[in-house]
Every structure is written in structure tokens, then in C-alpha cells.
């Protein structure tokens, strides 16, 4: 089994976030970064499958120099090598454009499984995994709570999390792309030995010039208009009229607010 795990580096949970001058995103100065939480579970799931079936786990990350730390964390835990897609032209693009770059690299690598975290803790789009599946021309499953490789490593059975405590089991052929939900396993700690060994593992750097994507395809189709902190406000409205009239008005209002 060859499993490619896509990891993203996101601001740490306890980072103090400040909005940048153009209100387009947060200031990235002085911020500590961590591996996106569901991505850590994806790494663990890949390592567990490798332990059972053998093969290779490759960590792939797109972003500036600093994301090497996220790749190395995966290598320290036992992944075999890393791919770092690093080009300023690819930063700050939307999920589709970034997935195009990743899909080309991953497609050339070849794979049995591509794992992504369900969504990133920063943008929270939850798109990269499914777009990757589409671009790579393989079936996708999202919100995976269990992954079982079956059928002589020809198919995979995935437990998907639905609403209200419901789950769905879904079987699909390999190769496939799966986005992993947090909590499906217990991510291991990087051992000190693993950390020191990671130094010796290969991290291949890929820049835009190594890819054959036309510039037109890297124009974002989606843009963040404005980032702002939610304004805390409290408004009380007294609804007049008899009980019956007031109740009818209340229902109308709630419907307008889509609370009903």
C-alpha cells in the first residue's frame, strides 16, 4: 500500500489571532503553527495501515518553508518520506487551485490511498480532499471514522459520520481519496528516536516550475471578502398584540431568521 497523506500547517490553537491590515486574513507574524488536527489523525491512520499491510507512507504539504516542520513531524512518527510543494505563487490560493498543484504531484507519484484531514482548522473549507479525488479521477469518501482495507488490498470500506449519531459504511475500489475525521484513532507521539531519524529522510521539494499547470488554472475562483471578529450584541424586541397575534408574529419572525 502506498498512502499519501496531505497535511496542512495551521495556527496553533492557543495562538492569539489578529486581523491583518487589509482585513483579508490574520497577521502571520509571531504566530506559532501546528499540524492541522484531523491531519494528525490521517497520519496515524496511514501508519496503522502500513503496519498491517506494509508499503509506504508519504507526507505531502503545500506552503512556505515553515511547513517542513509539519512534514518532519509525520516523518518522526514513522512516515517514509515527504514532498514539499513550495512556491510563493501557490500560497493564498483557493482550495481548487491548491488541489490542482497537489493532484499533479500526487498523480505522478502514484498511490493506493490519498488521505486528507476532513477540514482545516483555519479556513475550514473541507474541500481539498474531495477536489483531489475528482482531479485524480478516483472515488472519494469524506468524514471517515474508520478505514478498512479489504479484498486483497483492492478495495476499502469506510465508516462515514452522518448527522445525529448516524453512521454509514461505504465500500469503494482502490485507489481512492478519503478525508479523515478527528477522533478515529489515537495519534502516536513522535519518539525522540523518530525525531532524530527524520533528519535522514528525504523531503522532495516541488516548485511551480516543476509542474505543468497553466497559470490560468491558478486564478482563484473563490475569495475571502473580509475577515472580522463577530460583534457581540444583544437585542430585545417586545412583540405586541394578543397572545394569538404575538405567537403568529413570533413564528413569522423565527421563519425569517430561519430558526424554524
Amino acid at each position, binding site marked *: 500500500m502506498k498512502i499519501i497523506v496531505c497535511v496542512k500547517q495551521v495556527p496553533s490553537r*492557543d495562538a492569539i489571532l489578529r486581523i491583518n491590515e487589509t482585513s483579508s486574513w490574520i497577521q502571520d507574524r509571531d504566530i506559532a503553527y501546528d499540524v492541522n488536527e484531523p491531519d494528525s489523525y490521517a497520519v496515524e491512520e496511514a501508519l496503522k495501515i502500513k503496519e498491517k499491510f506494509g508499503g509506504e507512507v508519504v507526507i505531502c504539504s503545500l506552503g512556505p518553508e515553515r511547513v*517542513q516542520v509539519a512534514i*518532519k*513531524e509525520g516523518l518522526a512518527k514513522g512516515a517514509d518520506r515527504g514532498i514539499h510543494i513550495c512556491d510563493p505563487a501557490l500560497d493564498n490560493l483557493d482550495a481548487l487551485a491548491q488541489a490542482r498543484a497537489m493532484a499533479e504531484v500526487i498523480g505522478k507519484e502514484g498511490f493506493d490511498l490519498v488521505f486528507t484531514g476532513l477540514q482545516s482548522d483555519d479556513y475550514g473549507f473541507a474541500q481539498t480532499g474531495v477536489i483531489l479525488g475528482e482531479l485524480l479521477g478516483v472515488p472519494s469518501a469524506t468524514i471517515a471514522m474508520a478505514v478498512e482495507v479489504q479484498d486483497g488490498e483492492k478495495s476499502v470500506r469506510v465508516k462515514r459520520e452522518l448527522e445525529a449519531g448516524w453512521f454509514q459504511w461505504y465500500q469503494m475500489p482502490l485507489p481512492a481519496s478519503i478525508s479523515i475525521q478527528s477522533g478515529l484513532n489515537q495519534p502516536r*507521539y513522535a*519518539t*525522540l528516536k523518530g*525525531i*532524530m531519524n*527524520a533528519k535522514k529522510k528525504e523531503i522532495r521539494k516541488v516548485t511551480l516550475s516543476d509542474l505543468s499547470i497553466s497559470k490560468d488554472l491558478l486564478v482563484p475562483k473563490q475569495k475571502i471578502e473580509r475577515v472580522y471578529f463577530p460583534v457581540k450584541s444583544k437585542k430585545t424586541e417586545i412583540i405586541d398584540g394578543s397572545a394569538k397575534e404575538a405567537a403568529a408574529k413570533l413564528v413569522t419572525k423565527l421563519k425569517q431568521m430561519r430558526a424554524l
Partner: protein
Amino acid sequence: MSKTVMAKAKIVKGGSFLIEEKKPSEIFTPEDFSEEQRAIAKTTRDFVAGEVYPNRSEIENKNKELLVSLLRKSGELGLLSFDIPEKYEGLGLDKVCSMLVAENLAPAGGSFAVSHGGHTGIGTWPIIYFGTEAQKKHYLPKLATGELLAAYALTEPHSGSDALAAKTRAVLSEDGKHYILNGTKMWITNAGFADVFVTFAKVDGDKFSGFIIEKTFPGVSTGGEEHKMGIRGSSTCTLELNDAKVPVENLLGEIGKGHLIAFNVLNMGRFKLGAGCVGGAKAAMKEAIAYANERHQFNRPISSFGAIKQKLAEMAIRCYGVESAVYRTAGLIDQALEGVDADDNAGILKGIEEYAIECSAMKVYGTEMLDFVADEMVQVYGGYGYSEEYPAAAVYRDSRINRIFEGTNEINRMLIPGMLLKKAMKGELALMQAVKQLMEELLSFPSMDDEEDGVLAEEQKMVRNAKKVVLMVAGSAAQKYMQNISDQQELLMGIADIIMEVYAMESALLRTQKFVEANGEASAELRLEATKVFINDAVDRIEIKARPLLAALVEGDMLRTQIAALKRFTRHTPYNCIQARQRIAAAMTETGKYIF
């Protein structure tokens, strides 16, 4: 790993900071940690947060099985084997890594941190550095995993600081195969569950020697658990040796050379304790800030009041001083050990011993910083700080032991100038020449100080002058008492106080200057504030400490000359420390943690 970020490869002489001016590029700072060092710190932090911290009350309730299983679990991650050479199935990492593990284990609480340190440090080091090939092969791989857990047994009921006055005796058996040991060792950390004890006994009643003892050897037993003020979850018992039969192969080091083991091991334990104190202080600050933000009085969070702001900021400022000095020392040791073979025990010990002055300074200065932080933490919590239901009380109690073990702070204080003078007499350090030059300067007309510019130029001058205070006081003491200085405990302790201030203030200064060189002044704003406050206050403390020392050393015209010189060396325009602390505290309450 650390050498690449330090400018010079030459080995810096221990204690030379007092007579030489160092450049920022010459010191190692926390900003220089490599990716691997940062990753090791993260694993330690994650392990503590995930496995130990949630169990801390269970550990405090003396659940020994849990403590032992957590120690072994930490071994699975490599957290017991970083100091053990690779040849013996350890990781053989550098000292900066050991310090980072110690620092990041501290938030687990005193009980776990002390148990872990007792095993990985003083319990294991004697075998690493003094063991025979066979002893290392036999014990180290098992100590690396935690299959065997270790303890260090030096103190006896009647010999604490005076360790060499131990009464435990060892006599060779008639068949020459065993040493028969008799005696009692006291306050032995990990004794309740340790499998291996490194202990000391006098062969034939006079030759102080080291031994490796296993719990299962005939005649070896442990007493009941002590009821302690703090670190209650750690195991502390006596080790009883009643005709204990120890195979001759388990003699550690040479007969009559036990003192080398005992003192070198404590020496290393001391500098690591400094790092533990930094970690403990950071954890305490986090809790204190969270509480101060949450607790409202007079309709405001108490963190918005000046009284609390000054406390929070001062915790961080003092921690910055210790942290800077601790990692500078680790960097010095790693630099000295670069290229020394993992099997060259004498070479390794020489490298570490070179910085014995700095190690003792870190122990004393670090433990007193943590005690200050713990005390202020209780105060921030107010009444809740006095309740065992809240975390401050345990931090306060746990912190107290640090000033007692690994050599009391008094013993360590006396070691600092003692070792310095010894180095000077051996000609290893040009201290006396520096003193002579200073004395000449004192008697000549004072030169006008040149105005300097650059980042922290004023503070740099203050550090330079503070070193002159050390030379003046230590020089007068050496002149007056010559070889008998070791009897003058009050003077030695006072001189040590000034030396420690100098080391910490210079370390903070150089670290901040190095940071500014790399990142510019704009992003160093609060570091600059912390450094200025720290040095401003340290110089004031030095002046107060030095006055009575001079009065005890010289009189008449000489006293007047030296007091005038002291005034000149400590003169500075007071910095607006109140405002600086307000700014630092504001950043701490916003981020919820130590900010550097």
C-alpha cells in the same frame, strides 16, 4: 546541534564571563534551538499534557503503580534514554536536549518531574560516566527503557551537606567475591520502586567508594515512605543495608574515588534543575494569568490592576534572566563536548566540570526564581492560593525542595566563589590580573565614561561595571583572607549573589541583543523592556549586597574609596520599570502565558 549557531568553536573557560566581555553571537539562546530540539520539546510537552497532567492528583495520592507505568511509558518515547550513549541503546543527545526535556517535564508537577529526574539524572549518570564496559552493557539498555528504574543514594541521617562523612561501610568478604555493606541512606528519591541504587560506602571504613546495588541483593531493603511537605507523589524512603552482599563487579569507579562520582553527578544535576525551574515557572505563570483574568473584583478582572500586573510581569522578567543563563550554559557545555567521544568519560566530565561555577549559579538562581514565582502565584490567587483545591498551594510546596536537594543553596553559594578562586590560583583564569588592574583603576583619577551607542548600550555598560564590583569585592576578600577564605561563609555567599546576578544579567543582555540582530528592534520591544528592568533591578540588588561585604573587608580610607567606586559602578539613571512591567503584563494577560 547547538554549535552551528554559536560563533566560535573555541572552548570558553568556565567563569570567564566575569573577566571577559562576550559578544551576542558567542552565546547559545532559546531562539537558536534546532528543529529537532524543538520537536523533542514538543514530544515532551505532548506526553505531559496527554498522559501525566490529567493524572496528577492520582500521582499526588501516592499511586506508585501509576507513577511507575508513566515513567516506563515515557521510556517508550525515548524520554528516559536521551543521555545514554547510542552504543548502550540510548539516544546520546546533546545537553540542550536534556535541558529541554527537563524544562518541558516540569508542568507535569513536581512529583513526576522529580521522579523522572531521579532516574534519568542522578540515578543513571553515575553508570554512564563511571561504569565499566560490563556495567554499562548490563544496566544502561534496561535503564533506557525503564525496565529497570534507578535511584541515587548518597545522603545519610548524619551526613547531608558533609557527604564524605558517611558512615556506611564496605568490607570485602573472605572469599573476595562480595563487598558486605552496612549503613542507612536517607531521603532517597524513587527508593520505593527503584530496582537499582547507586550508593556510596567507605571500604574498610575510610575509602569512600561508589557501588551499584540491586534491590534484590541479600541484605538490601527500603524503609517506609516519608511524609513530605511537597512532591508528595514521589517516593522517598531510606535505603537500609544490613550485611548487604554486593558482588565485587558492582564496585563503581575506583576504590577511594567515590567523591568524584558524588560531586560530578550533583554538578550535572544542578544545571538541569535550572531548566526544570524555568519550566515550572512558565507553568505557574500560565495558571496565575488564567486565574487573574478570570477572577473579578470591583467589577474588573484582577489582571487589570497594577498590583497584579507588577507581579505577573516580574515573574516573566526573572524567568527570562534564568532561561537565558540556563541555555547559554547548556550551549557552552555542548560546545565543550563537541568532538569528545561518547566513551571518553574523563573527557565528558572535564567538559561539564569546566562550567561547575555556572551550574551552581543556575541551581541557586533558578530555584530561588521559581520560589519567587510560586510565592507570587499564591498571592495572585489570594485566599484560593491557600487552599489545596487550587493549584498554587502544591506549586508553592513542591518548589521548596529545590533549594534543599542537589546541594543546598548555601553549599552551592559557597562553591561559586570557592571554585572561581581555585581556578584563579591554578592559573586557569586571569582573575587576579583583572583584580590588580581594577585596583589600579580605583586609585587613579576616574576616567570619563565614553558614550556608547547601539541596542542596550547603557545596559551593556551596567553589566561591565557590575563585573568590576565582583572583582573589587572578591579581590579584597582574597587579599584579606588568602587561603583561609573558605571559612568566611558570609562573604562567600554574598560574593556568590553578585556573581549570579552578573551571569543572569549578561545572559539576558546578550540574548536580547542577539534577538535584535536577527529580528530587528520592532519585534523585540518587550524583550528590550524585560532586559532593561532586569538589569536595572539587578544592579540595585548588587549595590545593596556589596555594601556590607565591603564593610566587613576593608576600613578607613580604603572603605571610603571602595564605597565610592561601588557607587560609580552601580550608578545608572533609573529605568521606568513600572511602565515596562505594565506593558509586559498586558501582553501576558492577552496571550495567557509567558511571552518570551
